[in-house]
């Protein structure tokens, strides 16, 4: 009963914990990391959501000869089609090659979309007066043409139903012609097989399993006796990327968390060599992770790809509170739990709030994905502060059997806190160089080397979107191979045209076509394709349908004319089917779309129904030097997007936000430094230490050939926050220890080394992330923290020595620098 009364609040905590974890979902879509209000992001999201090819797995088949490639692709398609529980559709060549009858459906529908002028020409051509002459001419052409295209076409279409008005292709009529190019390269040795998963196999968790099943089927097929030799198969497309991202996310989470925990455990063991507190600390860190995940579930619901990095960062930061508390506890003795908590509560709370605020600032960085990471770490840090004070401290007290009188005495005297027990040596006052020149020598060397590195190889800013891509991806090279094999060169930009109905989209497509034709004439763009010829115009359909049905009524007369002109039944088969479709079409109350599978496959690539209306998809191939403002981004209902535009837009957004963010953080830091030191010399020294740390980071980046990108740019405010911490601790410690550098390094220095070590391990573990951006963020943060530590712990005292000269006591006599400084010596804050 006593225990129940004491721990009842844990039951209350369990409710949100369970709710949060139950609500938790994972999202591996890169686009969901980005600001949805950017046109490029909005467009790419729409494209991904609504257009058929976006959800398909692309299997590439590469063979030494066209026959092998074709045979392999066909065998794969047959094998995969048999797996009806896994795939909804498999395409390895245009669908109308398997279902030629669908061509007639598509033609019949395409004719209904033609302008009335085209219908006048068609009805005149097929009128009883003109049809015999037309058929005689067709027959003569069949006898004399040397063009295989014409022979093939006239053979099954002597009426000319496959001939549309000129200009159809110019505005993307394309349609059936050229569709073969979607499946095979020009030499035929490289083919694509498109696999659409069942709707219930497309989720985050199912993607990896589904892909493995498909790969299993492909492997079995490749092991069958009829499989052509030397055929290479690769996988790409959304399901492949999704599976890679999902797998990578799980691996990242496991490796970064386990790696960080291992480093924490190793450092703790080196420092304290106590199993009980160590196990308690590790357990509490996992409680912190679990609670933060639950909070993430409650607040966000869905955790994104990048936010998974929160775990390692949080571990690195949370452990600091545990270390501070344990150190104090070790000094004060186990029974002093309440006292230790009271004494450290303010410092830990303050530190947690400032750290949480720094991470929460990531929400203003312009990248929602990174903002979510910041929020998670911020929430986690606050949770960690509470967990360590109320969870870890009592646990550690049980394992902390030995009280250390020496430490208790020091604590009572207001002496230095933690980790001094790492060494039993007393403060000596030694550690300073013999002259200012020697003190500044390392700074000079670093300045020279670093300055040279930075000036010669200043880290560039990467304007691409590589930082959003997965690393070590197999799907990415496969996608590039497709572009190479199909000679696509640079990826075209996507143009999305939206409207509340088909008529509105058609009007916008017409206006856009005019605009793009002008741009093309002025060489501002290389080419463009719009689905104008495929897009139904309701007015034209209504006007054309009666004429189509009238033509269908002349079916017998047309058959007779074909017979008289010498054509066999095959010559009239296509016309028969087209007429039948027209005859079957009812008076449209709405808009007619083709119903057969082949035509739907084609139209789904350029047209999509959305809750708000309709979307049409076109492409623009920009000129090599695309001038800003060339693209019709200002037109109503028109969105121009593409990954190549995304990088620039995002970086612009992040850079603009970052300027303000750094300025804001910088201003706040200056205020904090003044409040802490109350003396401009110390403020200036801290700022110089911070700047030097940044310089070291830049030099390291230059030496390692790293670049800034839209993800790691956001490390800057984090590093400012972390870097200034070290400068404050070192300067305050110097004051406390009367400028006894050896004592400072033995106490605060070791504490900082331990805490920075865990932080570096945490950020460093992200360097192995499967996400390139998160990895670069982790690398920059790890190096940045190390640079800030080196600057604050090893260089700053020397500068202080150089700046204050004789006021430094080189022999260990305790004195503070100034009366003001003496008054304002605070306790160490966050370690």
């Amino acid at each position, binding site marked *: 009963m006593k225990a129940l009364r004491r721990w009842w609040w844990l039951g209350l905590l369990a409710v949100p914990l369970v709710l949060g974890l139950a609500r938790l979902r994972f999202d591996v879509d890169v686009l969901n990391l980005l600001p949805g209000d950017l046109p490029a992001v909005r467009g790419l999201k729409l494209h991904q959501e609504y257009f058929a090819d976006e959800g398909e797995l692309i299997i590439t088949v590469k063979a030494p000869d*066209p*026959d092998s490639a*074709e045979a392999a692709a066909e065998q794969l398609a047959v094998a995969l089609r048999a797996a009806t529980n896994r795939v909804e559709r498999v395409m390895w060549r245009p669908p109308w090659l398997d279902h030629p009858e669908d061509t007639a459906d598509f033609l019949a529908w395409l004719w209904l979309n033609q302008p009335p002028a085209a219908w006048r020409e068609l009805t005149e051509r097929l009128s009883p007066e003109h049809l015999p002459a037309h058929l005689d001419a067709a*027959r*003569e052409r*069949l*006898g*004399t*043409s*040397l*063009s*295989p*295209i014409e*022979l*093939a076409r*006239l*053979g*099954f279409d*002597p009426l000319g139903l496959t001939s549309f008005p000129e200009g159809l292709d110019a505005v993307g009529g394309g349609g059936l012609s*050229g569709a073969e190019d979607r499946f*095979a390269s*020009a*030499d*035929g040795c490289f083919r694509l097989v498109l696999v659409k998963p069942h709707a219930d196999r497309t989720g985050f968790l199912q993607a990896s399993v589904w892909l493995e099943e498909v790969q299993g089927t492909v492997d079995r097929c490749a092991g069958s006796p009829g499989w052509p030799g030397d055929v290479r198969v690769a996988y790409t497309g959304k399901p492949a990327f999704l599976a890679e991202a999902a797998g990578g996310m799980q691996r990242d989470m496991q490796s970064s968390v386990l790696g960080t925990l291992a480093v924490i455990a190793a450092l703790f063991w080196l420092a304290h060599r106590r199993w009980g507190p160590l196990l308690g600390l590790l357990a509490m860190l996992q409680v912190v992770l679990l609670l933060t995940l639950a909070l993430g579930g409650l607040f966000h619901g869905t955790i994104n790809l990048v936010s998974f990095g929160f775990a390692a960062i949080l571990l690195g930061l949370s452990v600091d509170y545990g270390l501070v508390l344990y150190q104090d506890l070790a000094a004060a003795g186990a029974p002093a739990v309440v006292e230790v908590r009271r004494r450290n509560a303010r410092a830990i709370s303050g530190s947690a709030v400032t750290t949480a605020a720094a991470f929460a600032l990531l929400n203003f960085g312009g990248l929602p994905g990174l903002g979510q990471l910041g929020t998670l770490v911020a929430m986690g840090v606050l949770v960690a502060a509470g967990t360590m004070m109320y969870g870890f401290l009592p646990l550690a007290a049980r394992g902390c059997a030995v009280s250390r009188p020496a430490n208790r005495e020091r604590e009572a005297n207001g002496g230095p806190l933690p980790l001094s027990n790492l060494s039993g040596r007393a403060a000596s006052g030694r550690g300073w160089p013999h002259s200012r020149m020697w003190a500044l020598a390392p700074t000079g060397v670093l300045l020279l080397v670093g300055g040279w590195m930075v000036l010669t190889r200043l880290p560039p800013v990467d304007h691409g979107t590589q930082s959003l891509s997965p690393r070590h991806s197999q799907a990415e090279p496969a996608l590039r191979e497709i572009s190479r094999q199909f000679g696509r060169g640079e990826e075209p930009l996507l143009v999305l045209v939206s409207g509340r109905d088909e008529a509105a989209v058609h009007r916008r497509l017409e206006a856009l076509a005019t605009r793009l034709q002008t741009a093309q004439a002025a060489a501002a763009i290389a080419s463009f394709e719009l689905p104008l010829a495929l897009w139904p115009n309701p007015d034209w359909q209504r006007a054309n349908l009666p004429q189509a049905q009238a033509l269908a009524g002349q079916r017998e007369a047309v058959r007779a004319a074909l*017979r008289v002109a*010498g*054509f*066999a039944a*095959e*010559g009239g088969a296509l016309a028969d089917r087209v007429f039948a479709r027209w005859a079957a079409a009812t008076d449209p109350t709405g808009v007619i779309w083709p119903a057969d599978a082949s035509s739907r496959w084609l139209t789904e690539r350029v047209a999509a129904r959305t809750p708000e209306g309709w979307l049409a998809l076109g492409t623009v191939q920009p000129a090599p030097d695309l001038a800003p403002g060339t693209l019709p981004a200002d037109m109503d209902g028109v969105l121009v997007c593409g990954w190549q535009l995304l990088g620039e837009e995002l970086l612009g957004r992040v850079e603009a936000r970052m300027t303000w963010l750094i300025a804001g953080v910088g201003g706040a830091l200056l205020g904090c430094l003044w409040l802490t030191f109350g003396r401009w010399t110390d403020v200036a020294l801290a700022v110089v230490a911070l700047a030097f740390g940044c310089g070291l980071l830049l030099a390291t980046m230059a030496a390692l050939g790293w670049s800034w990108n839209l993800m790691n740019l956001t490390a800057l405010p984090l590093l400012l926050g972390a870097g200034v911490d070290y400068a404050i601790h070192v300067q305050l410690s110097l004051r406390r220890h009367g400028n006894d550098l050896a004592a400072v390094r033995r106490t605060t220095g070791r504490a900082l080394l331990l805490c920075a070590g865990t932080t570096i391990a945490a950020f460093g573990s992200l360097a192995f992330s499967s996400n390139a951006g998160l990895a670069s963020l982790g690398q920059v943060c790890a190096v940045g923290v190390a640079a800030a530590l080196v600057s604050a712990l090893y260089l700053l005292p020397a500068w202080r020595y150089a700046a204050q000269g004789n006021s430094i006591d080189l022999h260990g006599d305790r004195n503070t620098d100034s009366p003001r400084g003496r008054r304002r010596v605070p306790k160490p804050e966050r370690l």
Partner: protein
Amino acid sequence: MAAGGFRNLNGCERGPRRLGRVRASLVLALCLRCLTAVQGGESDALLTAWLETQGRLKTWSAEFTQTRTLRALREPIRTPGRLWFTAPNQFRWELGNPPQTLAVRTPQELIVLYPRLKRAERYPLGGEGREPWRDALALLDAGFPASRAELESRFRIRSVERLEDRAELTLEPVDSRARQFLSQVRLVLREPGFALLANEMRFSDGSVLRNDFTNMVANATFPKEVFALALDEDVKVVEPLKR
């Protein structure tokens, strides 16, 4: 059979009997192999001889009757015409009298002119592109290979048949995409001498285009204008393969 079955079950005579069958099969296989090799050798010799003759051919001209048996038409269409060829790969086809279609091939391109329509089609033949239509067009000179390597780069030799006074070669395009349109090419050669009597193209829909040659003249000198197609200003030139 039953006795054999029992013997097999008892293990008696099984080995020698089976060995005997194997030997017999081996002998039969060897005989067949030899027979095939003899036939293959004969075919190869014929092919080599024809290609050697082709190698000596500098120019060739003939009149022909083209018969198009198309699935779309109830009756075949017969059209007269003339052909000029200069090694290694230049030709001029005139179809109709007066010509309704002219096709002139130079090493770089094929131009097809329809005088009555005032329309010309230009098909570039260089480069690495292997569009099916380009392959199909190049097949118009299938009867005049410059070398064995060139022939085999474009066709698989399906059969070589020697009849009383002629030989027939059946070829199939190597490129699977070309085969989508043209399934087979047949060359009929006069024996002896290997003069081209006819060529025949079978399209994948079952249609057949056959040229029967007469009045053949080998290694005559042609005026230069034969392979220079003058296009009037009012002729519209298009490139059907250009995207």
